[in-house]
């Protein structure tokens, strides 16, 4: 996907937040595929993009850090739309006691293009279908 289509996707996601509570995932697309402990390419890509853009705050394997939430917990109650909204627009919680800022990734190709992959990876973790560490891809050599 080119960047222009990423922006289109961004537009559609933003619109979805308001207009279509079901989100941008097609009805029948699985959010992730985990087979015998191995993952499909999309889920693996989600793991990788997580490492690039999310790990440094949310910790290894989505498990949270001393200051950023455990996403495997967050996704138990957060919908795909809510997830997309926060990733794209960011979140600022700066008060007398809190100094937490999630950046807006809405114009970051590495995140926006693969938002569903990242969501799928974290959802697999959240659902308890995927353990910690680097997942093996389906068909990958041991």
């Amino acid at each position, binding site marked *: 996907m080119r960047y222009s289509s990423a922006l289109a996707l961004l537009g559609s996601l933003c619109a979805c937040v308001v207009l279509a509570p079901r989100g941008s995932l097609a009805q029948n697309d699985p959010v992730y595929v985990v087979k015998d402990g191995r993952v499909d390419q999309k889920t693996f890509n989600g793991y990788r993009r997580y490492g690039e853009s999310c790990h440094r705050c949310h910790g290894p394997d989505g498990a949270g850090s001393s200051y950023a939430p455990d996403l495997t917990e967050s996704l138990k109650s957060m919908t795909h739309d809510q997830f997309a909204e926060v990733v794209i627009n960011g979140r600022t919680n700066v008060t007398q006691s809190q100094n937490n800022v999630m950046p807006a990734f809405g114009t970051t190709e590495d995140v926006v293009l693969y938002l569903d992959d990242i969501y799928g990876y974290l959802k697999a973790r959240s659902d308890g279908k995927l353990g*910690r560490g680097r997942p093996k891809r389906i068909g990958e050599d041991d």
Partner: protein
Amino acid sequence: MSLKKSTLLGCTILLGVAAIGLSQPASANDELLKLQGDANQWVMPTGNYANHRYSTLDQITAANASKLHPVWSFSTGVLRGHEGNPLIVGNVMYVNTPFPNNVFALDLNDNGKIIWKYEPRQDPSVIAVMCCDTVNRGVAYGDGKIILNQADATVVALDAKTGKELWHVKNGDPKKGETMTMAPMIVKDKVYVGISGGEFGVQGRLTAYNLKDGSVAWNARSVGPDDQLLVDPNKTTNMGKPIGANSSLSTWEGDQWKTGGGTTWGWYSYDPATNLIYYGTGNPSTWNPVQRPGDNKWSMTIFARDADTGMAKWVYQMTPHDEWDYDGVNEMILADIDVKGKPVKALVHFDRNGFGYTLNRETGELLVAEKFDPAVNWASHVDMQTGRPQVVPQYSTGHNGEDKNSRNICPAALGSKDQQPAAFSPRTKMFYVPTNHVCMDYEPFKVSYTAGQPYVGATLSMYPPKGDNNLGNFIAWDAGTGKIAWSLPETFSVWSGALATAGDVVFYGTLDGYLKAVDAKTGKELYKYKTPSGIIGNVNTYTHNGKQYIAVYSGVGGWAGIGMAAGLTNDTDGLGAVGAYKQLSNYTQLGGVLTVFGLD
């Protein structure tokens, strides 16, 4: 426009003046050279210019340390990771916090009453581009000023007596991922500061500002063309030989140096005898080595620069073409020790890459390079002729290639030791080193650079070395021979700066929150106390009314707080393995507190 909001209490100005009570010599250098030798105070972040973190105070000894107890404490009001330590100048203690980078002047003559508070106003969006928590490693004192490096890369000079802002200057652009976490160093009439942002493709640099007004004296890049590096191709040496023209450019492909990293966020030191300042540079960006062929000079390098002109006298690159994120920023300790039987004016450095280096600090000659954690496996040894580490192909993430998972590399990216500074005792001639004992899997992949966005390019999983349960050790190191004298296993990485004293007691903190005192000769534990949160701060000491005190920040966070809050990944590959990893979050929670200990 003023960035500050200071609390100025008229009645406390006089108190502050009286409390500091020092004559003001003509140059900050004279003043600091004198003050650094006064063990009653702790006037620079590193204790002294040589980064010894050693005090001649000897009231607290191996015999009475068990009677230590907390005597007062102070909440900073900020939750996230508290690195560094307070300064003690006269009867005033200067405490600073992570973002929002508040500074407090506390009156030790009045039970720690707040003389003034400085509260910067910063755009909180900078929080999102700080690599590893919003830490700040301390303020510097000189010429009646307190210098603060804010997260948003603003350097601010405050009047030490009143907290009033005297000048401020922008040292970087957070929109490009340029931030500041390091503690400034003041020498003579200049203040030296670095920059953070190696994970955002920042071009690293050291900048000297004139202490008087914040104007730039000089600026020296870590990577790039010769005129930006402040080097003399014919006189600046590497392993005893001139570096030659284009020493950095020739080790990068095309323009990659422009986003090449080599940031400068560690502790600096200064030797008045050589008039050289010493510091290390960080990782080359990105973490994906395949994308940036070449040695990537001068990332991962020890620099010795003239304090007045900035001209580099010598350089030594520890990890050419980094493949593991082994930043070279850790402190340079300047110690006069015997190396293999001969007295040497040495520079001792414990690198992230797991090697303890001893060099001649006048010439840059490499004397010792030995592993300070036996688990280190990425290189078999350092070739003493070329200075190059001999990389083991199995652990070379560049050799194994993009999209290949290189497994069981020791140490992990956080290094056998991160920035948490070691201490040196001239009495025992030993170095006391807080270390990490963690290994990793590392898989590089292709990324593109976008200003202000993460530029990482690798995934990693971290876990303890095979067969071991402890994630850290606190060790005593003989830098003359390159050998461990004793080693204390710790449940978690030791992420606290050490303190050695003439009472032959060594202090450090642990991630689960203990302040510990151990015997400098044997490592025997003498005292421990669980502070309110995990300790990533550095222990220091001072006297007040003739009594010796020990001070330390608690407040868990930093990279340690990211990597270990949820526990490390278990070293069993099975999916769904929830395994035997240790969660730091089961031991401690956030919260910044200064705790001061004393004897009755």
